[in-house]
């Protein structure tokens, strides 16, 4: 792909993602302030906001990872501009359909749209098919993009090379797989698998919707498929961000490139297999699910996350430990993002442990951990890339003003916002409550505090948005 075209479409992705991110944060703040009784919205509005917020956030941070991976992939293989543009068009159409279904049609079954909620219509009747079709439109665009990136890699690398299997036996194999290629491929395989799960899920849901009652779904099957798709994509988008860090962190820090070793290859191959079975931990409370699958869910949660996070943290420490680092906003965001990802990951593993899940299931601990590795993990990975790209593509070499202040605002806002979730979760405050009943006074206070800190976090994001989007718009509209 020509650099200019690639730069333009990457810039367009960045601006679109940041605009949608800011709007989605505002929806999140409205929800927390409502729970804290500082403002008042009706429960259906709350749940429509929750649905919009959830799907949009998952969608934008997935495409953020994909756009970044596509950008760096061009360093190794030739990628398809058409597929990238097709994904962009489908994403825009999907977002319009999604927001219409939730904010106009008032569809409010949550981002997991767990069966049979979409068919218990308490909103405009057209909103259910529009919502499901919006997911379908996203799926088609992303499926084509994923396949095109995988095809590009598999033209150059064999299957064993792209998965770095040659590193298992030898210290210096003939062909060395760059960590970026390995982690991208591992992530894309997971993305492809979960998108296929989404296709099957949507076919089954449409079959029931359009059959007029002659076909009914099995709730357990649909829940398994929903989390196969939902849990896996939420994890893979983090791994896409990590692939970018492996590529960019040493580069911007003035250190040599990271290399794939046997333990890096092994850890990421474990992630490939086990992340696909980790979703079973979402079904611990489903007594019909056989006990064996529940145990697989717990083991897979550990085996998918611990080795990959272990080697990533080790690799980053190797880069920074006793080395002179050119600290900039980009690698600072990456570094803090890694910390956020690990903290959120620990929170996730605690919840994925069956004995703990009895207490933490469906409490605010769940949004606590996934907001940690997203808001203070994946978002920072992508912000780091956005910031670096906007400067690199515009040949902007001047140091950033107020970097420390921007980071400080982001950290203070993020940590405060997350602590309100963690404390409430540890106190067994239930999640997905529009308003808290009497007796949960502390939950209201924590929600209000969380909402205020979220406003601080939003201020930090806005400070990044102004500079990044200005430079990206320059890239987008430059003639030569």
């Amino acid at each position, binding site marked *: 792909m020509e650099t200019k075209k690639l730069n333009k479409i990457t810039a367009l992705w960045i601006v679109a993602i940041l605009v949608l991110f800011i709007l989605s944060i505002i929806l999140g703040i409205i929800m927390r302030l409502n729970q804290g009784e500082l403002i008042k919205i009706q429960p259906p509005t709350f749940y429509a906001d929750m649905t919009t917020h959830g799907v949009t956030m998952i969608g934008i941070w997935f495409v953020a990872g994909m756009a970044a991976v596509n950008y760096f992939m061009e360093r190794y293989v030739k990628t398809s501009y058409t597929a990238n543009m097709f994904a962009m068009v489908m994403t825009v159409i999907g977002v319009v359909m999604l927001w219409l279904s939730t904010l106009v049609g008032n569809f409010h079954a949550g981002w997991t749209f767990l069966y049979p909620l979409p068919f218990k219509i308490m909103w405009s009747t057209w909103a259910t098919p529009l919502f499901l079709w919006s997911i379908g439109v996203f799926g088609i665009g992303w499926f084509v993009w994923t396949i095109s990136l995988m095809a590009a890699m*598999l033209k150059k690398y064999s299957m064993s090379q792209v998965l770095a299997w040659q590193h298992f036996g030898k210290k210096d194999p003939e062909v060395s797989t760059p960590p970026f290629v390995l982690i991208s491929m591992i992530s894309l395989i997971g993305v492809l*698998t979960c998108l296929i799960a989404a296709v099957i899920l949507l076919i*089954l849901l449409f079959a029931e919707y359009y059959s007029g009652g002659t*076909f009914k779904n099995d709730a*357990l*099957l649909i829940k398994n498929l929903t989390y196969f798709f939902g849990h896996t994509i939420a994890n893979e988008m983090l791994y896409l961000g990590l692939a970018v860090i492996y590529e960019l962190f040493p580069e911007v820090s003035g250190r040599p490139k990271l290399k794939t070793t046997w333990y890096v290859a092994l850890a990421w191959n474990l992630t490939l297999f086990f992340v696909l079975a980790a979703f079973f931990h979402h079904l611990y409370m489903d*007594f*019909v699910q056989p006990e064996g699958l529940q145990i697989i869910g717990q083991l897979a949660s550990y085996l998918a996350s611990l080795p990959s996070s272990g080697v990533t943290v080790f690799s980053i420490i190797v880069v920074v430990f006793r080395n002179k680092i050119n600290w900039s906003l980009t690698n600072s965001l990456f570094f803090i993002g890694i910390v956020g990802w690990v903290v959120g990951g620990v929170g996730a593993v605690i919840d994925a442990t069956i004995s703990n899940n009895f207490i933490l299931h469906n409490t605010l601990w769940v949004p606590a951990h996934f907001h940690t590795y997203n808001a203070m993990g994946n978002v920072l990975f992508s912000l780091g890339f956005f910031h670096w790209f906007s400067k690199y593509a515009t040949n902007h070499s001047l140091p950033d003003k107020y970097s420390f202040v921007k980071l400080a605002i982001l950290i203070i806002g993020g940590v405060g916002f997350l602590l309100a979730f963690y404390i409430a979760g540890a106190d067994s405050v239930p999640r997905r409550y529009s308003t808290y009943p009497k007796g949960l006074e502390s939950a209201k206070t924590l929600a209000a505090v969380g909402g205020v800190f979220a406003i601080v976090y939003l201020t930090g994001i806005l400070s990044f948005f102004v500079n990044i989007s200005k430079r990206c718009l320059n890239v987008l509209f430059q003639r030569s």
Partner: protein
Amino acid sequence: MFKRTFSTLLIILLISNYNSIANNLYDKQDWREEEGIYTRIYDAKIKLISGEQTSIHQLAAKKPLIVALVFTRCAGVCNPLLLQLKENIQIILRKNQYKFSVLVLSFDPLDSLKDMQNLAYRFNLLNEPNWELAVVDSISSMTKSVNFFPVWDMRKKQYDHDALLVGVNTQGYITKKLIGLRSADEISLLISDINNVYRPSYRLPTPANMFTCFNYDPKTGKNTPGWGLAFIALPALLTVGILAFLRLRGKYHS
């Protein structure tokens, strides 16, 4: 001439098919346990055999209810329903600590309070603390709210109806229904349910459910794997296939 012949034929056709049409309509009524769950039972005014006037919701607010619908001239399922219910309740009371009342309501407008008192006497329920018998004001609204649709059979001079027990919690919500004569275990589940105690239950298979993960056989209590499980493995299998295809294609092009 043609019109008259056509009309006559149509009338003959309609009369001859009346029974099957009526039966079809009857079959289409919602005689299913899962219908109307978590909807509120109609708050009908009722008169208890003690003479006290109250409403269903007021009675339920004191203790969750098992509502049994009968009529006193019933020559069919009402008697076995009440006899078995009484027997089962006695078994359950020995080991179940939950609160509940059984409310026996007549759905026949011809039944008087005296008829219900006689019914209580016949079944030896007059001094049973957990039992209430009553007549109801708005029969059709009440029966409609629990999806109970008795059909009057002119020939037998009887209502054709099923044996139905409706579990109502203290907020007046229908949380569980049982159709037919049921065991003490199942009634015990219903009592837990109306006391808002979670009880796991298995969905019964219907022809509309084609891709189930597991198939529960209520007769044997066994749960066997179903075709739905294949759908969970399918994404991984298809991914392997797509990867193999992409690699072969890549090899060919390079």
